[in-house]
């Protein structure tokens, strides 16, 4: 099976959101980067499917040159090659992103499966996978916690609070997945060393005019709220129980 997994380089934020002076982006000067947990599971799933049924895993990202780091991480756990749609700007909304992805795979051999995280960790638009599916005329199922490929089709499951909805779709198809789909493996060092040699194709891309045009980012109020300290240590217990009773939960 040929599987495409789309990932996005996102900063590892801590407990606070700090913006750049112009309010256009997060200050990432001393932050590390990763891909979203949903996407880690997507890459792991793709690698497992290809390990058992053969094929190729291609991992793609739209991002700055530094996003190569994330592609190499995916290759370290088994993706075979990478595509970097390189851009200097962060002004890519979901529509533009989906468009760039569709354009880039236009010339490639068709993929049997295209995997996305259900939503990106930062922008969380919930739509890139669905837009790519429509553009390619492919069926799409989202929010998946289980994927079972069958001959020419895939059976998948989505959590719906205490139950699972089962879908089945023929391949090729687009699927978006959630963390909990699997437990991503830890990369081995031989895997990392091999990943350095795997092929990585780079294409420069620029965004079209945006229909959801970001004006600025704002840190919501409520951060900097100070909790009412009920006490210290075990001695606080009686006061806590009072509060619990006031709230009607005890």
């Amino acid at each position: 099976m040929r599987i495409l997994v789309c990932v996005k380089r996102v900063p590892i934020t801590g407990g606070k959101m700090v913006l750049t002076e112009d309010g256009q982006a997060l200050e990432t000067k001393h932050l590390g980067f990763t891909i979203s947990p949903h996407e880690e599971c997507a890459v792991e799933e793709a690698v497992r499917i290809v390990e058992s049924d053969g094929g190729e895993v291609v991992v793609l990202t739209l991002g700055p040159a530094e996003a190569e780091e994330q592609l190499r991480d995916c290759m370290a756990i088994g993706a075979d090659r990478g595509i970097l749609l390189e851009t200097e700007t962060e002004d890519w909304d979901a529509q533009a992103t989906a468009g760039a992805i569709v354009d880039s795979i236009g010339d490639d051999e068709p993929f049997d499966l295209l995997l996305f995280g259900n939503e990106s960790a930062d922008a969380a638009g919930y739509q890139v996978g669905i837009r790519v599916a429509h553009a390619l005329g492919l069926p799409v199922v989202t929010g998946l916690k289980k994927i079972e490929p069958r001959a020419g089709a895939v059976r998948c499951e989505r959590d719906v609070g205490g139950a699972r909805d089962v879908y089945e779709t023929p391949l090729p198809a687009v699927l978006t997945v959630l963390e909990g789909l699997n437990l991503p493996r830890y990369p081995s060092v031989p895997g990392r060393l091999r990943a350095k040699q795997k092929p990585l194709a780079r294409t420069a891309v620029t965004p079209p005019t945006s229909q959801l045009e970001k004006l600025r980012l704002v840190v919501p109020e409520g951060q900097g709220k100070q909790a009412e300290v009920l006490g210290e240590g075990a001695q606080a217990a009686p006061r806590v129980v009072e509060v619990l009773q006031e709230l009607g939960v005890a």
Partner: protein
Amino acid sequence: MNVLCFVEPDDELSAQAIGFARSLGDTRAVTFGGTYQPAAWARALAAHDADAILAAGSDRGNELLAHVGAILDRAFAANVTSIAGGVVTRQRWGGSLLEEARLHGSPQLLTVAPHTQPAAEIGAVETLSAEDDGSPKVLERIEEASGGVSLREAKVVVGGGRGVGSAEGFTVIEELAGLLGGAVGCSRVVTSAGWRPHTDQVGQTGTKISADLYVACGISGATQHIAGAKGAKRILAINNDPEAPILAVADYAVIGDLHEVVPAISAELRKAQG
């Protein structure tokens, strides 16, 4: 403005969305009968003439509007908290950051960020039908053996983080949760460490809770976790560190070692419950 709002019956998030929708203009509340088939339902929604199409920022709401956006080749703003003069404010990072963006074109497609609007009476709902277009639809629903309270629906959630220290350490968390009739949750570090299953994870990529009370024990409060917890009406943080980020989003706090504080609370509760 003519507003079309997709709702699901008896759904709290839909009740929040319908109020917001009505604040924008004349609103038709619609739902669908039959098996859930997102692309087909979206096609039906898209066929209507409306200035704005809304839904709650639930799994289905976001999915449907994304399909509508793709079908109409229009921008879709997910998890919006307000809109004024064509500028939406929407949530990033699970709500820890807001984006102000100009939403161009028509119809305006948006979902309403959960727990940011007051619930309204849903009122009259039209049931539409959607033509099966061959796209994926739900084939069956497998009920899961319910072992206790579901995290998503629990009125009380007691969560444990890195500070719990081990899988066994969760016994005190489970004890307190049991006494409050609640569910046990955890942070992502805990699931990565293998102490609890992912189904217990509260967070941006786990379960987003909507409890009346969330007791966060030994959880520092990374934004990824807070994103899943902010649906809770009240948060009580139990932490050793007075500088922990969670204290900036909690309503109440106890500064101390959870291994001492949580059993003490359980003991007091037992006394009070007789």
